[in-house]
């Protein structure tokens, strides 16, 4: 089980990036983490992986605490930012990651490369890749590693339609094999298709957590966009948006 236990991050200017965030994720479950820009999604993920120092709280995978090697070995993170070593070719970067994670079968790696259809460009430096191709390299490394949980921050950004479809199928396959995934995304339609539960976060706080059906029932609507708007955006802000659009 993957557990985020009461994580908070307060910045030096007093601003709370994330406040008392707690979440449990079962094996084979996908949770969508959604919220407006600056709501604290990336701060939460960065705190989990020790990229920034959380003010308080921990995350666990089974008995392994975040920061330990076992935790990092079993929880893979695909950041929104295209963090890749651009001087290397795609093949070299994939080889580098596979050596760090040790037991990765060559066939498995090659199948992923073929699946994302980037074998032709694999021997070119990453620097020359498009945004989508770089994202594909990140995703190949994520799925070739035999992790137990995966956190994907905006995984669809920059991908073409075919790659998005492949990615969704891969995530389903991953969880059917016992993995768990947290997907941080603004794409609510994809979230509705793919995720078991949705966590809505705003101003650093977890506002709602439940299945899509539960959330729709709670907000008396059939539309997931409306759930999001009602939940994450305050009523007066909603009225402001309407006024501003009408004034244009």
């Amino acid at each position: 089980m993957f557990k985020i236990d009461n994580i908070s991050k307060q910045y030096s200017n007093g601003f709370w990036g994330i406040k008392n965030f707690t979440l449990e994720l079962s094996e084979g479950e996908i949770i969508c983490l959604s919220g407006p820009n600056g709501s604290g999604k990336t701060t939460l993920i960065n705190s989990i992986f020790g990229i920034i120092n959380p003010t308080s709280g921990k995350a666990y995978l089974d008995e392994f605490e975040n920061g330990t090697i076992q935790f990092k070995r079993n929880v893979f993170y695909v950041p929104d930012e295209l963090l890749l070593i651009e001087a290397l070719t795609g093949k070299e970067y994939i080889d580098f990651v596979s050596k760090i994670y040790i037991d990765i079968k060559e066939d498995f790696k090659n199948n992923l490369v073929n699946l994302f259809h980037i074998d032709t460009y694999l021997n070119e430096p990453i620097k020359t890749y498009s945004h989508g191709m770089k994202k594909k390299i990140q995703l190949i490394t994520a799925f070739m590693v035999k992790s137990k949980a995966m956190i994907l921050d905006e995984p669809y950004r920059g991908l073409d339609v075919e790659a998005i479809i492949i990615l969704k199928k891969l995530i389903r396959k991953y969880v059917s094999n016992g993995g768990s995934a947290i997907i941080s995304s603004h794409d609510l339609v994809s979230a509705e298709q793919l995720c078991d539960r949705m966590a809505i976060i705003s101003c650093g706080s977890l506002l709602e957590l439940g299945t899509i059906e539960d959330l729709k029932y709670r907000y008396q609507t059939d539309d997931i966009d409306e759930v999001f708007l009602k939940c994450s955006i305050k009523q007066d802000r909603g009225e402001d948006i309407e006024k501003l659009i009408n004034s244009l």
Partner: protein
Amino acid sequence: MKILRSSLILFNLILKIWKKSLAGFLDTTQKKVQIGILFILFFGICFFTGYLISGEILTLFLNGDSRALYLLLLSELITISFITVMFFILLRCLTPEQNTITRILICFPIKEIEKKIGYYLPVIINIIFSSFLFVFIIYIPAMLVNKIDLMIIFGFIFCLLLQSIIITLFLFSIFNLLMFIASKIRIPYYKNIITTIIVFGIVWYHIQFFEVYENMLQSYSVYKFELITITAPFITLFSSQLPKIECNYLINVGFIVSIILIFFIVSSLSEKIEEERLFKIFKFIKFHKNKIVNIAIKEIKILARNEEIVMFNILACIIVILVRKVLKLNISNSGICMFTGALSSFISIYSYGMEENLLPLYKNLGISYKQYTYGKLMGNIIVSLTIYIILSTILFTYPVNVFNILLGLITSCTGSIILYFIGLLFPLTSEKPFMQGLISIGIIFGMIPILFIMSKLFQINKYILYVIIFFLMVTIYFMIFKITKLKWNKES
């Protein structure tokens, strides 16, 4: 073994990145041949000069002056310490992807110590190997030719290698410690600022050191503790032919062991990546309806907020302080004003390259190449003059000489235009460190004959010089517009 495995993977990765950076730089046969010739010439000159210098000292030693060899060792240790520092700074500047690698590795299952070994080992080996090779070529052949005892040669090699290792570990410890502290207190652009502080500290140390260096040579039989000659007393362990030196070996050994221990302790500290702090200087300046003024304001803001330029300005302050200290100059000396003026304009070399990729954006905004160029030049001149005034205010504590200040202002303006022109011809970005290095060296070496010709002309007839400078400036001014137009039209 597990630690070594992960470290080895990182080790290979760093070597691969260097290899690729070098291959990217030497991408044509012409460049390879040029660098090859330079390389052979450089080492040839080093070998020849080294042979001449050390040959004489060795003859003294062979004629019975046993202190000559110890003095030679002292000078070799100082040389290798200097070169090690140079390679350390060079390698830190030439590894632009370090930050990305560190950020990628945070989420990977690798221990902090594995990362540090994997990351630092190639850097340390490279620094020590390069420094040693350099000194080896200069001094050792002459020792072999003069048939110096093999044990003494071995002793020299031991002392030089150890000296280079100690200096490298010391620099890494200081750098990492400062980085760790700076990441905690969140100083903007702290990596560049720390590199600059270290460079300043080292240069300052060497200047102070040379003042006591002569005394050291005179009283050679008593060893005076100095970091850059810390391994010198160990030479006496290798041969009885060498003079006895009064030295408390325990202090030296203790210091060496402490440096190694501190290096390992400091290496286990990991700096967290917090949110980046950036300068918002000139936030109060409002944009204007006039396109040229608008571009000039934009230029002022981006130049003042650019990380490398901020670092350069700190460095400029340090250089001016050092030049004044070393040459003992004051405000009544026009040289220091012109030098400060020229230094303040150096930032203009980055101006075009920094946003060359934004040319299509400006075109889409309906800006013409003339408006763009006027705005850029205006912005650059204003920033250069501001830097000149700041540098002068901070550094000139003597009564102000108006003529010299004016001379500095003119140098700053003309320098800004000339350097913008060079930056237009060879666009510089932080992603091209080799190019940056080459251009900087090119400018420094190019300035020597130009200044020589200028001073000769000044002696013959200063009005001829003024006319030449005027026509040169007019030509450069028109060339800037011509080249910008070509680049502007190409970006369609």
